[in-house]
């Protein structure tokens, strides 16, 4: 995992204040969010991190990423302080090819958000990527109806800042089940999960 770059630890942002307990609480919160798609979960223990991405995206990665889960960063986040932060605090390798990523951090405006990520295989659908999509707000956008496992009937979710064709792409991803990527939307210290099993009415 040589990268020809020495981490500058003199300026590194701190990670979780209490790694074991904070990670447990965060894991619980992430689990709640994933098992109840559309529910907005707040992450109080999230550290500020390196500035970008959001505290919620940072906390999600500190909770789940490690040296076995390569992380891909969209241009907006692919900066030395972000790479150093994730390498030091999560131990995660940073990759430049989408296909190698287990986690990816995207901006709401990142073009072709689904293109090239690992979808898993019929034998191992779990070997797919999880996309962390940074949005300006988890509320106040155009309302969509979500339904699927973990949702009692329908959930009205209004994620803001997504491109027009985002939901068409999502519909295509949903039809790949059991393969396909999973999504976590993040804004500030909140996140909301969209697993591949959930259908969204366009």
């Amino acid at each position: 995992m040589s990268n020809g770059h020495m981490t500058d630890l003199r300026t590194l942002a701190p990670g979780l204040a209490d790694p074991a307990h904070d990670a447990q609480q965060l894991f619980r919160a992430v689990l709640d969010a994933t098992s109840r798609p559309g529910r907005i979960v707040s992450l109080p223990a999230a550290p500020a991190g390196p500035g970008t991405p959001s505290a919620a995206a940072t906390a999600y990665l500190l909770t789940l990423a490690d040296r076995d889960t390569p992380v891909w960063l969209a241009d907006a986040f692919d900066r030395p302080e972000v790479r150093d932060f994730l390498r030091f605090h999560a131990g995660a390798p940073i990759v430049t090819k989408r296909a190698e990523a287990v986690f990816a951090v995207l901006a709401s405006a990142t073009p072709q958000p689904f293109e090239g990520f690992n979808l898993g295989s019929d034998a191992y659908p779990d070997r797919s990527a999880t996309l962390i999509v940074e949005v300006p707000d988890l509320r106040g956008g155009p309302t969509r109806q979500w339904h699927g496992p973990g949702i009692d009937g329908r959930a009205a979710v209004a994620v803001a800042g997504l491109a027009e064709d985002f939901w068409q792409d999502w519909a295509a991803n949903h039809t790949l089940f059991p393969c396909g990527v999973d999504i976590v939307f993040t804004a500030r210290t909140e996140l909301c999960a969209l697993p591949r099993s959930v259908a969204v009415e366009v």
Partner: protein
Amino acid sequence: MSLSSSADAPALARRQRWLSVLAKAPAARLAALWDGLGSVPAYALLRRPETGLVMVKGRLSGSGAPFCAGEMTATRAAVRLESGEVGIGYVGGRSACHAEIAAAIDALGQRSDWRDRLEAQIVAPLEAEADARRRAIAARAAATKVDFFTVAREANS
């Protein structure tokens, strides 16, 4: 994956030697020498001591391709002095205190006002003790060295 300028090479070699001596020292002995220093500059924990695993690699027949022989426990810590120097400690085993002291000494060793004192009071004594342990093991083993006499000598001897 190394410091770029050749002027850094001696500094790097010193850190490498120190960190290895500190990691291989018995944790209690290191703690005793560290306490013996008296007051030391304050530092912040950049990474709290954390225990994990390192996969120990062997090689086929000792010299061939690497393979995974099994894991070992290890503990790491990182500290930052108020003056900015960052120290890293990686030690075998599960002693949080061992890793933290190693990191603190690594950080202080980057300051010229501390380097000689740490070398004299901690690193050099630990190195001498490690050498004495190695010699004691070798001396006991040497007492069991044998010369087998074969009745028919091999063709080439």
